[in-house]
């Protein structure tokens, strides 16, 4: 039974990394298409559009952080796997869900907002600072999810 516990915990780490990473991949992909569109006509805007393209990339990093914390908690990063009960394993899985799910949704949404912001930079490069704020707003919810996942994983005793 104790082996099933660690499987659940590992599944939690996988969910955090996989879903948040997928969200970022989608987001950076969408923003990247928009950035390429602008670059095709105006290569001088490279630096500005690159920054906007990278904004949706953070969700993947948040998922990675939770993945690391979880792996470290269950001893898979050194010292050997610890004994995790099924209940604790499920708790860890639940704790990983916020960043996984919110990371996926916010990553894609932030990518679309970044693409729209790239449109602003294409027409009005002097409005870059303001344009960056719109996709940055979406980041708030990824950070909130990261916070809850981090607190929850850290609070679970194994």
């Amino acid at each position, binding site marked *: 039974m104790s082996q099933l516990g660690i499987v659940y915990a590992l599944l939690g780490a996988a969910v955090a990394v996989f879903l948040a990473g997928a969200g970022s991949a989608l987001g950076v992909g*969408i923003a990247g*298409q*928009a*950035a*390429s*569109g*602008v670059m*095709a*006509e*105006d290569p001088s*805007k490279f630096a500005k559009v690159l920054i906007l393209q990278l904004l949706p990339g953070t969700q993947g990093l948040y998922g990675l952080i939770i993945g690391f914390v979880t792996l470290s908690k269950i001893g898979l990063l050194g010292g050997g796997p610890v004994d995790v009960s099924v209940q604790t394993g499920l708790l860890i899985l639940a704790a990983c869900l916020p960043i996984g799910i919110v990371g996926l949704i916010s990553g894609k949404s932030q990518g*679309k907002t970044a*693409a*729209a912001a*790239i*449109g602003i930079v*294409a*027409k009005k490069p002097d409005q870059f600072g303001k344009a960056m704020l719109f996709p940055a707003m979406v980041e708030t919810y990824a950070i909130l999810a990261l916070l809850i996942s981090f607190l929850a994983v850290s609070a679970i005793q194994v």
Partner: protein
Amino acid sequence: MNELEYTFAVARIRALEASLLTDQVIDQLVNSPGEKQCLELLRERGWGDGGNDLDAEEMLKTEEKKTWEVIREAAPDLNVFDVFSYTKLYHNLKAAIKEVCTEVRNENIFYDDCEISGEEMLRIVENKEFSRLPGKMPEAAQDAYDTLLHTRDGQLCDVIIDKAALEAIYAVGQESEDEIIRNYAESTVAIADIKIAVRSQKTGKSIEFMRRAMAECESISIEQLMKAALSGMDAISEYLSGTSYSEGAQALGDSPSAFERWCDNRMIQTIRPQKYNSFSVGPLVAYLIARENEIKTVRIILTGKQNGFSDEAIRERVREMYV
């Protein structure tokens, strides 16, 4: 098609929108002392092929070509844009039928930047291979060809093909998933019907003639429009004031050129929200229409300058710009 497929294309269009002519530039063009100064100003804005020759017609042709090149490169699905070349395609058919039936050859009467080039169209008509034409074009081509051969009535031939073009545009609009294409088709057909009604009223055409020329659409009842046209210009204005084309009725009262101008301005107003759309085909379609409108306006200004029109007379005819 998934609207995200257009992300690259829309961003590219956004970058290009920055170089569209604004109302201020159009004002500058109108205020220029002559055609040469206008062409210089346009060349500074990147118009033409970058050469030193300042030929107005060549410059406008190059700009039209550039617009379609951008659309061809950026759009993931070009079928959406077929509807915009229908006017040229049907014009080619009309010209080819007339050339074959009258056995007279003229230079430069065909458009080559559409599905079937002039040469190809001429071959199709000469060999009567109408089945090679797309959609419902074969029926219209056969009808127009027979009509011209039997009656020698060029206008009737034009009417048959123009109506077929309008019906084809409307059919594409009805089938399209994109709202902007539906709106374009609806407006194009309705405005064409209104123009037919106005011209028919002025030239005293019969209801049968109008019925042959007008195409059905949703926002205009052609039956009522035809009856109004038979009664007089005031009746047309009165009928239009009860439709979504009420401002057109007012323009109609002012002058024919004011009405033409209103038609183009209305189209620009319809597409203007696309400036704030970051996905979907809308901004691409809007760019294409905006460029065509821009080129048309520049052509009006240049023609006005060539013919020594006053700035005021030209200003009356210039269209609103998209940006």
